[in-house]
């Protein structure tokens, strides 16, 4: 059947559409042809696919051909069967008849004859030519048609339809179309069945030796072609898929050695999208096809169908896998194929695929998922193409122009060299080209990395090309192997594997003459190993033979063209990857584009791309890769004068893992940073060095400070710089953890700091902070003119190079400032009273509350009536609690403490009202003794015994205050102020009473002494200085019997002394004494108190000595009021009786007093008396003059009555108003009644008016 191939192909090529035969029985075709042709192509047809499922097909093309046409005639039955896809799918029989008889006799037999062939699908179109107005004719036509239907249509199938030429025809055309479709469907079903049956039969014999793939192919493709004609592309595609599978299965059966193909000129250009590139008859071999062409042909057929199905994505993805698998097939046959045809074929096929799919693709046609996948495949195709293109370029000697980046190395260094059976050799006349190439290579300057970074370049070759090429040469004289290691070979290789594996290159002199490329030398040794340059030239010549595409050849003909194409491919690949999920692929290729941009001086673009790459790598922590790209970015930025970017790149380089760069390189980075920092930057920007300088608080508990205290904060800094670096200034912010809105506070270190590499500890002085706990915030500072900041906080250990996740804020506080609390207490040591008018120690307990009082200063300010005895030093001693505590436990505790604490004692002098506390007192409770003297100018007054106590001297009189202000803390920032009240008192309170009156007029005056102090008093002497009118009894000196003394008065007890006095005028002449209106009691005493308890011996006395000297005695003076006897007063005031009916509230009455002069007074030479009425205003309302002068004769016995109108206001026993005579001394007045008295005031009389019931 193989001989059918050519025939099949020609039939297939001539046949384009589904054919519908028209059997024109009544010459009607010219009449209806136009109408019929207008229906083409069929808008919608429902056909059955291979699995007998209905498929809706749009725009099915078809062609009407008369059965008399030559195309349908002259066919052999066998052909008809085999190539039945071209046979008519339906037969339309056109008839007309206007007469029943004619129909019966002529038409019907003829029709029967035509339709008896079962193979055909047929139906009859009855054309009625009856004009519409001719009822007769149309009636007849109807009759004939009815007859026709009866004869030819069956119940199962309607086979007739009627076309009214002059009538409405819409219904007819639909009818016609559905009938034709039905016929086509039926025919198609039958033919599918036929082919399937045939294919099945042939498949069964597949592994028999007689089997021919060609026959199978013809059947299979016939079926596929039929599907394609019927627009059942899906089914057609499936047939081709099956065909491909079958081909791949059978093609490689061992024992059948076939040509692979691909040897012809132009085969290097992929034909995988052009099924008609090579006629199949040319590639047929035995009973099969050459693999090279046929596989491409199959793919091309599939691609064509896929494009028809509008699935360009699938073309791309199938295409990619096809290219990969076909590349493997090419590799298998590489030794017989032209040099590098594999690479060239891949390039052309990839480009062909991307271009064809792009032409058929429009965005939004498919879902986003598929779209992304589509772009991914395109990216893959471009990058595959790119790799192969680079490989070709390398073979031509453009290797120096290819960036030795990881991506290029990954795609090239694992890609084996082409393996031709024999490596192409130099044409004999190419010596000039060798020279030119050598020149080109020498001119290409290797790119020097910035910062003097020296890295072994990544390899672009799987093995040394020099070695590989020479190994594959047909004949190699091994005599001069060392020439393999020409000086340039290592330069080109870059991989360095040569240097390691070469047999000791040191043995050969470096000055070996490189004359082997001179023409003369060349010709003479045709068989010596080729040099690299020669390999390049040879490859160029071989490639020129291989490559038939002038475009491709142009793009590798020169370095510039290569770079342009390379850039184009890289860009296309990157763009497509960017549209897909594979962002990393895209970004990495951006880096390759950047390298080219950089080379051509387009630094701006290069920097942008490099930045993307760096961001990708650093974002995911791929430091090794970052270390490869970042120097390039830095270089761009330096050239662009982007100082900020350059600096940050340098800092990033420094913060990379230390192992990635040599110390020398890292030092170069640092010197760049320092150089820029100290230069005048145009736009100084703060530099983020978070990854380079990290900081943390010291381990251990945070620094604890009391409110308002400054402190010193110690912080650990980790410097990632390789050398010492000087920071001109440094400050650190503290952030309060509790309070977010609290502004952060910066603390700065004074002066420049030099950071050593690694760990540094710096101390910062900390001003007083607000209450709360603080964490370290941001580190800022300056290197030169450059401000920098760091957020990086290292935790304890050295800065991790892997700082991807270490940007969390440290939660550990570094500083705690406590809430304000009392840090110290000042209290009076003694609560009992001290001696008035004597120098006394005031004790003040200074109690530090868990806080050091080191260097504290106490300001002492005494209040009025109190002054500090400057003559004495202030004493300070350890405080011992003498008072017993209630709970024994604490007491014992205290005892132990006391025992352990060394008694300290210091004397302090007051300077400007303040003293400085000694250091020993900074932590323990101490007591401060201040010598003071309370001053009270007035004389103590005694009272007569039995009088109301209110007349005793008030406690307030003895109260003095000491204002204390303690400044303490580290810088005296803490202030504690307290005013302490100190109570002073006289040692005694004196009250008197006349104990007895002797018959001789001597009065026994009892003086009662109440001890006021908490200390025993010893009275050594006491005497009275009497007032006028009194004299000492027995002409004594006013002292009691000396034998009584010393008299000891314990604290809080009373003692009494009796004095005998008598009335009488003063006999002494002393004027002063005459003037003295009061009697003075003088007491000389000693006090034996302790200052820790209360009153004590004044220090001026106690320190003097122990002898019982008069100087040691204290003197207490108190004035006493001695009253003359009752008869003696010169005026008598009598309270006259009240009305007999009693006093009532609200009732007016007159109160009367009588004043009577008892005796004449010389000094009162006026005859008037000043009176005053005093009454409690709550109880009394007084009308009349309360105060005034009344005449009173100076004569003895003269009297006057003073009356005043009063209204009592309150009921009960109340004190009545009293009459006083202010001008006359109390002693001169005799009152009746003598003491205060009360009167009874009745409530107001009941008022009946209030009692009337309502």
């Amino acid at each position, binding site marked *: 059947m193989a001989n059918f191939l050519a025939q099949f192909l020609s039939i297939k090529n001539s046949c384009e559409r589904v054919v519908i035969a028209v059997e024109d029985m009544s010459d009607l075709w010219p009449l209806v042809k136009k109408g019929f042709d207008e229906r083409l192509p069929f808008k919608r047809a429902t056909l059955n696919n291979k699995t007998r499922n209905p498929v809706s097909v749009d725009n099915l093309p078809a062609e009407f051909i008369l059965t008399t046409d030559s195309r349908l005639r002259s066919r052999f039955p066998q052909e008809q069967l085999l190539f039945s896809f071209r046979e008519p799918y339906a037969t339309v029989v056109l008839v007309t008849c206007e007469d029943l008889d004619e129909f019966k006799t002529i038409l019907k037999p003829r029709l029967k004859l035509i339709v008896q062939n079962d193979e055909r699908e047929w139906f009859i179109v009855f054309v009625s030519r009856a004009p519409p107005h001719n009822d007769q004719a149309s009636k007849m036509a109807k009759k004939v048609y009815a007859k026709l239907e009866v004869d030819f249509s069956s119940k199962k199938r309607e086979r007739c339809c009627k076309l009214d030429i002059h009538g409405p025809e819409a219904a007819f055309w639909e009818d016609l179309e559905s009938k034709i479709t039905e016929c086509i469907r039926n025919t198609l079903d039958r033919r599918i069945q036929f082919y399937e049956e045939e294919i099945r039969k042939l498949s069964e014999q597949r592994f028999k030796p007689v089997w021919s793939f060609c026959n199978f192919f013809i059947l299979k493709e016939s079926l596929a072609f039929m599907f394609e004609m019927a627009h059942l592309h899906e089914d057609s595609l499936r047939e081709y898929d099956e065909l491909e599978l079958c081909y791949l299965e059978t093609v490689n059966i061992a024992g059948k050695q076939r040509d692979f193909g691909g040897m012809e000129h132009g085969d290097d250009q992929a034909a995988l999208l052009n099924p008609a590139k090579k006629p199949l008859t040319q590639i047929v071999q035995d009973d099969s096809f050459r693999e090279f062409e046929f596989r491409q042909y199959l793919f091309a057929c599939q691609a064509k169908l896929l494009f028809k199905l509008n699935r360009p994505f699938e073309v791309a993805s199938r295409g990619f*896998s096809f290219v*990969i698998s076909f*590349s*493997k097939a090419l590799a298998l046959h590489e030794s017989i194929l032209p040099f590098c045809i594999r690479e060239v074929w891949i390039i052309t096929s990839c480009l062909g695929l991307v271009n064809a799919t792009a032409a058929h693709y429009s965005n939004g046609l498919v879902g986003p*998922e598929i779209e992304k996948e589509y772009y*991914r495949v395109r990216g893959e195709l471009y990058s*595959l193409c790119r790799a192969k293109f680079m490989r070709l370029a390398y073979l031509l000697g453009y290797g120096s122009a290819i960036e030795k980046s*990881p*991506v290029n*190395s*990954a*795609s090239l*260094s*694992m*890609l*084996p060299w082409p393996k031709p059976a024999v490596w192409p050799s130099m044409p004999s006349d190419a010596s000039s080209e060798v020279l030119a190439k050598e020149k080109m290579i020498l001119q290409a300057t290797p790119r020097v990395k910035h910062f003097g970074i020296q890295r*072994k370049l*990544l*390899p672009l070759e799987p*093995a040394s090309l020099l*070695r590989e090429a020479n*190994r594959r040469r047909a004949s190699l004289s*091994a*005599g*001069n*192997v*060392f020439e393999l290691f020409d000086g340039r070979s290592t330069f080109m290789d870059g*991989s*360095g*594997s040569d240097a390691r*594996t070469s*047999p000791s290159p040191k043995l050969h002199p470096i000055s070996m003459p490189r004359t082997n490329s001179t023409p003369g030398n060349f010709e003479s040794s045709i068989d010596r190993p080729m040099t690299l340059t020669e390999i390049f030239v040879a490859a160029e010549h071989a490639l020129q033979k291989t490559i038939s595409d002038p475009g491709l050849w142009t793009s590798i003909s020169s370095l510039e063209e290569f770079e342009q194409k390379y850039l184009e491919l890289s860009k296309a690949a990157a763009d497509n990857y960017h549209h897909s*999920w*594979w*962002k*990393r*692929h895209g970004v*990495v290729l951006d880096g390759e584009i950047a390298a080219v941009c950089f080379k051509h001086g387009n630094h701006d673009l290069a920097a942008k791309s490099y930045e993307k790459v760096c961001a990708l*790598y650093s974002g*995911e*922590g*791929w430091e*090794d*890769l970052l270390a*490869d790209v970042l120097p390039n970015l830095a270089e761009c930025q330096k050239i662009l004068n982007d100082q900020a970017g350059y600096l940050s790149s340098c800092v990033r380089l420094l913060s990379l893992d230390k192992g990635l760069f040599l110390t020398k390189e890292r030092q170069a980075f640092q010197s760049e940073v320092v150089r820029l920092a100290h230069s005048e930057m145009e736009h100084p920007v703060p530099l983020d060095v978070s990854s380079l300088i990290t900081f943390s608080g010291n381990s251990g508990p945070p620094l604890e400070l009391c409110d308002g205290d400054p402190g010193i904060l110690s912080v650990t800094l980790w410097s990632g710089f390789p050398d010492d670096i000087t920071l001109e200034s440094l400050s650190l912010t503290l952030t309060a953890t509790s309070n977010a809105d609290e502004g952060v506070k910066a603390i700065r270190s004074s002066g420049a700091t030099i950071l050593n590499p690694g760990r540094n500890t710096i101390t910062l002085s900390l001003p007083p902070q607000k209450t709360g706990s603080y964490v370290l915030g941001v580190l800022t500072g300056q290197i030169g003119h450059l401000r920098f900041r760091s957020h990086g906080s290292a935790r304890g250990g050295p800065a*991790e190079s*892997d700082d*991807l*996740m270490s940007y969390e804020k440290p939660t550990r506080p570094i500083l705690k400032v406590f809430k304000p609390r009392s840090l110290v207490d000042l209290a009076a040591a003694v609560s009992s009273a001290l001696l008035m008018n004597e120098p006394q120690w005031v004790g003040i307990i200074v109690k530090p509350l868990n806080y050091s009082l080191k260097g504290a200063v106490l300001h002492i300010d005494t209040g009025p009536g109190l002054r500090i005895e400057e003559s004495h030093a202030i004493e300070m001693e350890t405080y011992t609690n003498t008072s017993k505590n209630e709970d024994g436990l604490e007491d014992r505790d205290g005892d132990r403490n006391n025992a352990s604490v060394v008694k300290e004692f210091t004397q302090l002098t007051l300077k400007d009202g303040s003293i400085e506390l000694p250091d020993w007192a900074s932590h323990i409770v101490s007591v401060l003794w201040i010598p003071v003297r309370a001053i009270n100018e007035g004389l103590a007054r005694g009272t007569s015994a039995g009088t109301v106590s209110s007349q005793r001297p008030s406690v307030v009189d003895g109260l003095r205050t000491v204002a204390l202000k303690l400044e303490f803390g580290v810088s005296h920032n803490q202030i504690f102020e307290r005013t302490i009240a100190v109570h002073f008192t006289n040692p005694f309170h004196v009250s008197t009473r006349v104990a007895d009156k002797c018959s001789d007029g001597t009065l026994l005056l009892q003086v009662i002494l109440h001890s006021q102090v908490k200390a025993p008093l010893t009275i050594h002497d006491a005497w009275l200085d009497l007032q006028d009118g009194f004299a000492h009894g027995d002409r004594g000196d006013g002292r009691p019997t000396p034998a009584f003394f010393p008299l000891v008065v314990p604290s809080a007890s009373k003692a009494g002394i009796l004095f005998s006095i008598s009335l009488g005028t003063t006999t002494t002449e002393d004027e002063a004494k005459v003037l003295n209106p009061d009697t003075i009691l003088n007491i000389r005493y000693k006090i034996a108190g302790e200052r820790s308890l209360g009153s004590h011996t004044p220090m001026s006395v106690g320190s003097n000595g122990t002898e019982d000297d008069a100087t040691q005695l204290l003197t207490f003076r108190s004035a006493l009021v001695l009253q003359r006897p009752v008869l003696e007063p010169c005026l008598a005031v009598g309270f006259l009786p009240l009305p007999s009916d009693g006093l009532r509230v609200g009732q007016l009455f007159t109160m009367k007093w009588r004043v009577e002069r008892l005796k004449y007074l010389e000094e009162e030479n006026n005859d008037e008396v000043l009176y005053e009425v005093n009454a409690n205003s709550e109880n009394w309302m007084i009308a009349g003059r309360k105060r005034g002068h009344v005449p009173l004769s100076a004569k003895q016995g003269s009297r006057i009555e003073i009356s005043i109108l009063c209204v009592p206001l309150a009921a009960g026993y109340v004190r009545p108003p009293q009459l006083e005579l202010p001008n006359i001394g109390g002693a001169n007045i005799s009152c009746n009644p003598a003491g205060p008295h009360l009167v009874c005031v009745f409530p107001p009389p009941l008022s009946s008016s209030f009692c009337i019931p309502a």
Partner: protein
Amino acid sequence: MFNSQAKFGSTESANLSVTEKMIVCIAVVGHQNNPLYIQSFTEADDALKLHHIVHCSLDVVDERVNNPKKSGPMLNETFLGLLYPTENYKVYGYLTNTKVKFILVTTDLDVRDADVRNFFRRFHSAYLDAVSNPFHVPGKKITSKTFAERVSTIVKSFSFNTTG
């Protein structure tokens, strides 16, 4: 001279046969796509290109993980299979429950999936032991020497199993 040439050729071919069928790189990549461990087994000083391959293969892992539709039945499968069908080498992936990825690069183009699956299983247990070390900081690079030794043993036995 002649001897050295012959010797040279033979060593080269021996090298090729070794390098052609072996694991060239194995990597552990953290759940944030950060490298945790990356070890290449090539003789040449070209680890960076393997870094690149591993890094780029994360695209594929991401794609599979982020598109559950495409990898529907693979959801519960830790072994991601072949990530990269390239001409010259193969990249296999493995995803642990904690989103840690293992990437294997091999130049052995005829490797069987089952072998790789088995390799990853052994590697996974080595990894588990390494990260269970109390001194290992999760999310940081694995620096354990024991782990490195164990990995190289696994890699060697893999090459031996598949080639021999």
